[in-house]
């Protein structure tokens, strides 16, 4: 065989259902129950408002650094909405909306962002792994979980989230390769929000799309308009069904945008133009989806949205208050020795005792005892 083109079986496609002008491609419209549509919408709105409230708390110094999700609600919720609760979600650090959808309470998020380890507690009945800060390193955990599901003959699947920047890490590569080799039921959802802190997508890699990186692992890859809830949902559904029926992993690139700062410690004005942001404001997933629910599905109205806004505001306020209350009960520092090992080893017993001594000493010195 001389110089011959090799046919790579897989194709990379781009999917869009409800475009940025709100025009619907009827042929591609997924079937989603009314309840589910309304639930998704509610969580999108909640995610948006919660972000705003967290920002506000952060600016007041009442919580620490956090990573806003505004603009990425469709990419997250379109994907997780396909999961059953017995399925697993393995988040990165920017999945507030997805976490809430999966059952994480707002107060636990506030607690976490207030620097309390207790905020990281995952309830026993929630199949999420905790937030993972080191970029891309959790993809392998998703693969291991998915392998275990297969080994235990469950038909649950694992969905994991990460950013465009994450695709440059070695662990992205090893994760997708292992998933391909073992055909594990895992859906890799890349939220390509165009920026990794100050580094634009174009500087992250020379590949034309992130979706095509799937070709390196012989697994399906698909690019979707990540601000189009219907497209994300359709892509995720296809991938989840494939995974559930033994067809193995899929890489989905959701093309979206981070409308706010990277984290509250970041100032995006340093590295990107306001015009770019405004362009993407025009592609905001929330009004687009609302328009669909109002005009196409007749499920919503201006008034209903207003009522929802009030409801959500109160819900958030209640969560903030619950979190404050919990915080006031969590001052005990000795708990920092917990959960390092199943049992406290001798050195930790000694050190815990030392700290306990110090604390009671302090109290004495402060005249509290």
């Amino acid at each position, binding site marked *: 065989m001389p110089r011959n083109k090799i046919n790579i079986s897989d194709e990379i496609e781009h999917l869009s259902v409800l475009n940025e002008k709100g025009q619907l491609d009827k042929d591609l419209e997924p079937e989603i129950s009314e309840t589910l549509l309304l639930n998704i919408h509610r969580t999108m709105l909640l995610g948006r408002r919660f972000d705003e409230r967290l920002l506000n708390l952060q600016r007041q110094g009442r919580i620490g650094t956090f990573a806003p999700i505004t603009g990425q609600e469709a990419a997250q919720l379109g994907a997780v909405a396909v999961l059953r609760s017995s399925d697993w979600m393995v988040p990165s650090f920017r999945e507030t909306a997805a976490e809430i959808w999966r059952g994480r309470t707002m107060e636990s998020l506030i607690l976490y962002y207030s620097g309390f*380890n207790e905020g990281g507690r995952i309830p026993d009945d929630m199949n999420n*792994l*905790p937030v993972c800060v080191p970029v891309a390193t959790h993809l392998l955990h998703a*693969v*291991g979980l998915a392998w275990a599901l297969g080994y*235990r003959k469950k038909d649950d699947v694992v969905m994991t989230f990460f950013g465009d920047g994450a695709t440059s890490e070695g662990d992205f590569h090893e994760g997708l390769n292992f998933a391909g*080799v073992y055909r594990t039921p895992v859906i890799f959802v890349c939220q390509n929000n165009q920026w990794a802190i100050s580094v634009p997508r174009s500087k992250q890699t020379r590949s034309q799309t992130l979706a095509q990186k799937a070709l390196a692992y012989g697994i399906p890859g698909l690019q979707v308009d990540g601000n189009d809830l219907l497209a994300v949902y359709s892509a995720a559904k296809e991938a989840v069904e494939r995974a559930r029926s033994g067809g193995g992993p899929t890489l989905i690139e959701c093309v979206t945008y981070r409308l706010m700062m990277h984290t509250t410690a970041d100032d995006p004005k340093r590295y990107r133009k306001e015009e770019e942001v405004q362009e993407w404001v025009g592609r905001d997933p929330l009004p687009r989806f609302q328009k669909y629910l109002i005009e196409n599905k007749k499920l919503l109205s201006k008034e209903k949205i207003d009522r929802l806004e009030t409801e959500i505001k109160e819900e958030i306020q209640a969560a903030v208050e619950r979190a404050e209350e919990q915080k006031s009960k969590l001052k005990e520092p000795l708990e920092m020795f917990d*959960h390092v090992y*199943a049992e406290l080893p001798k050195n930790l017993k000694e050190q815990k005792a030392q700290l306990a001594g110090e604390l009671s000493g302090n109290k004495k010195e402060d005249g509290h005892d």
Partner: protein
Amino acid sequence: MTNITMVQALNLALRQEMEKDDGIILLGEDVGVDGGVFRVTEGLIEKFGEQRVLDTPLAESGIVGMSIGMAAYGLRPVCEIQFSGFSYLSFHQIESHASRLRWRSQGRFHVPMVVRTPYGGGVRALEHHSESREAFYAHMPGLKMVIPSGPRIARALLVSAIRDPDPVIFFEPKALYRAFREEVPDEEETCPLGKSRLVLEGEDLTMISYGAMMRPSLDAASELKDKDGIRVEVIDLVTISPLDDELFVQSVKKTGRAMVIHEAPRSFGPGAEIVSRLVEKAFFYLEVPISRVTGFDILIPLFSRENYYLPNVQRIVRSARQLLKT
């Protein structure tokens, strides 16, 4: 009861535990069909099948990271890193996840996995195949770090490591893989993590060591007894972290003299912690400075010179005599 090598003893531990618990999964490079480059996993893929013994792609972070996911689900992965010199490619998975998931999830998840990896010199190997850097892993809260010193304890310790609810890194002294045999009972034996062992009783001097250095330490002890009449007490740490300081502190309170022997580079090595614990807990019993007989603060030379790098009987004896002179 059979008379077996450490390789066989480790194999026995894996085999017997895998028979009892179908949650135990082996994974790593060449651990399946090849039986591991040192044959520790020999015959296990034949016995337990490809679903329980996975020949993985060549990717250490992948191996450890995937194991963490399996463990979070409740399986008990025992993964192999072919040589400890390559464990650094998975360092972040061990530091940032294996040892933290229990803590991060506040007890919802834990990581009952074992990372097995051969370490140490003495087998005339290539670069990166002879290092001894257990100190890296000993300085990781949330992780346990253990090292056996012979076939029998290796088997018992691996059984306990597999059953432990926390992640354990299990360094196998490759110089001992086939160096000698020991009687190992067929019945189950365990070895509690976090406990060191008194291997030889003595009155004059305490030697604290572990892994492959236990042999020269014991040989040195017997030479000192024979030639100098010095009665050495020898302790095998077994668990490096969390460190059991009770036994050796007690011993040094008795002998007043202590030596630490390891093949890791001296500075910032494991010996430093042992010295510090002795200072903290037995200072007023110390009659002379504690001596560290260790590898030098250099990269272990390629094999033609590694014997000059590794502590040996002579070096230990010389150092012991010095301690007793002062």
